[in-house]
């Protein structure tokens, strides 16, 4: 049996040695049972064009306004952005910066009752063509703003594509804008800034 031959020749001592039907095969197998004679496997490696994808840890807006980016979770349908208005939140279900598809969503306070004006208030003056830099894990990717829109709050998830994970990669920045309604504790709308990557992440 072929199987027995292989086991007998290459297996550990104590296994029954079955005479080889062909002297040549036996000699080959014996030579190969010397570990030093057997070459090692080839290690597969990433191609040089491997795309860099990273979790955003810092964002820089025009005018050098910068903020730390922390992962933000959706709890009961609400994206829980950092309470510190100088920090912003990366929705942990959105794309990593540099992915081929989908939006990388970063949201932050425009202001808060306790913390004052937030870093993302700078978005209110953002214009098409502005450059925004996202960094993390020693990587960086620059994006150019392609649209600035106001969306009624209740329409953000349903009618905007802010959270879509298909289509070409883009950066989506979200804060609040519109009419502030103190009795309702917030603004009427969301400001949505969309930016496209300038090349690949490095």
């Amino acid at each position, binding site marked *: 049996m*072929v199987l027995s031959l*292989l086991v007998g*020749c*290459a*297996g*550990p001592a104590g*296994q029954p040695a079955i005479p080889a039907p062909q002297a040549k*095969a036996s000699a080959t197998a014996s030579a*190969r*049972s010397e570990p030093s004679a*057997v070459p090692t*496997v*080839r*290690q*597969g*490696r990433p*191609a040089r*064009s*491997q*795309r860099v*994808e990273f979790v955003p840890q810092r964002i820089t807006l025009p005018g050098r306004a910068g903020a730390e980016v922390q992962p933000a979770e959706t*709890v009961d*349908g*609400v*994206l829980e952005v950092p309470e510190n208005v100088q920090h912003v939140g990366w*929705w*942990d*279900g*959105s*794309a990593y910066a540099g992915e*081929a*598809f*989908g*939006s990388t969503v970063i949201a*932050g*306070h*425009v202001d*808060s*009752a306790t913390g*004052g*004006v*937030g870093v993302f208030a700078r978005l*209110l003056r953002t214009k098409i063509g502005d450059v925004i830099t996202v960094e993390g894990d020693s990587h960086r990717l620059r994006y150019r703003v*392609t*649209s600035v*829109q106001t969306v009624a709050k209740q329409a953000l*998830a349903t009618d*905007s*594509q802010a*959270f*879509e994970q*298909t*289509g070409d990669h883009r950066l989506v920045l979200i804060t*609040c*804008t519109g009419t*502030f309604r*103190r009795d309702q504790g917030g603004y009427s*709308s*969301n400001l949505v800034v*969309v930016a496209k990557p300038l090349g690949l992440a490095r």
Partner: protein
Amino acid sequence: MKSKFGARWIKVALVATATLGLAAVSLPASYAADNAEFYVVQGLPGKNLEVAVDGKTVAKNVKTAAVAGPFKIKAGSRKVTFSDGGDVLVDRMFSVKAGSSWDAVVHLPASTGDDPVVTVFRNDLATVPKGKASLVVAHTASVPPADIRVDGKVLFENIANGESLKLTVPVGTYEVAIVPTGEKKPVILGPVALTVKGGAVNRVYAVGDPEKKTMNVAVHVLPTGSSGSGKPSKVDTGTGGQATGQGSDLTPLSGELVKLTR
């Protein structure tokens, strides 16, 4: 336009591989914590392989493009032997650390005529964001460096025999074609309709030789679990009112929708 090799459609259903109809023989389970595991990806056209680890047969009749395993092996240096009908085609020493997972691909070399090659790729089993898949494409075929076009765009560029590239992609079905680096034709393989599975690493190996019309893909899906939270329905990011009027040119509150150019 018809390519040199025929642009045929191959439906590739990414089913969890398990042991694909193989008489897999498990090694003793006494190794416990110092085990590693590996899968065999059979990239040799027209061969039915028998796989042995340190002389012990672990799988028989492994057909072209099949994935066999997982095979538990003790950490350390192991000898893996691939044979067909009693003839040893190739054997290699393989060093593994405890807890690691590997794909060992036995495949054709870049240029025809040389001996089969065994290339090992470590499986990254880190969780994938919800609704997404990790897609790894590896070049283990007898063709020069190639580009891999996904839905008509080059997403994996200039990948040579023995190399792989990884992308995170939304769950879905993609049209994948392999072409020579920098060219659109001849199409070496595909387009193939590839459905990637979410919460998993989907490893796709191009195998075979276009000159002999034996190009094929071997697919290995390993579940990883998902991370990240669901889509928000609301973003509340202003409770103070201090920023009112800070915008110099606020867009009108018409409920105008965000339009994303794709």
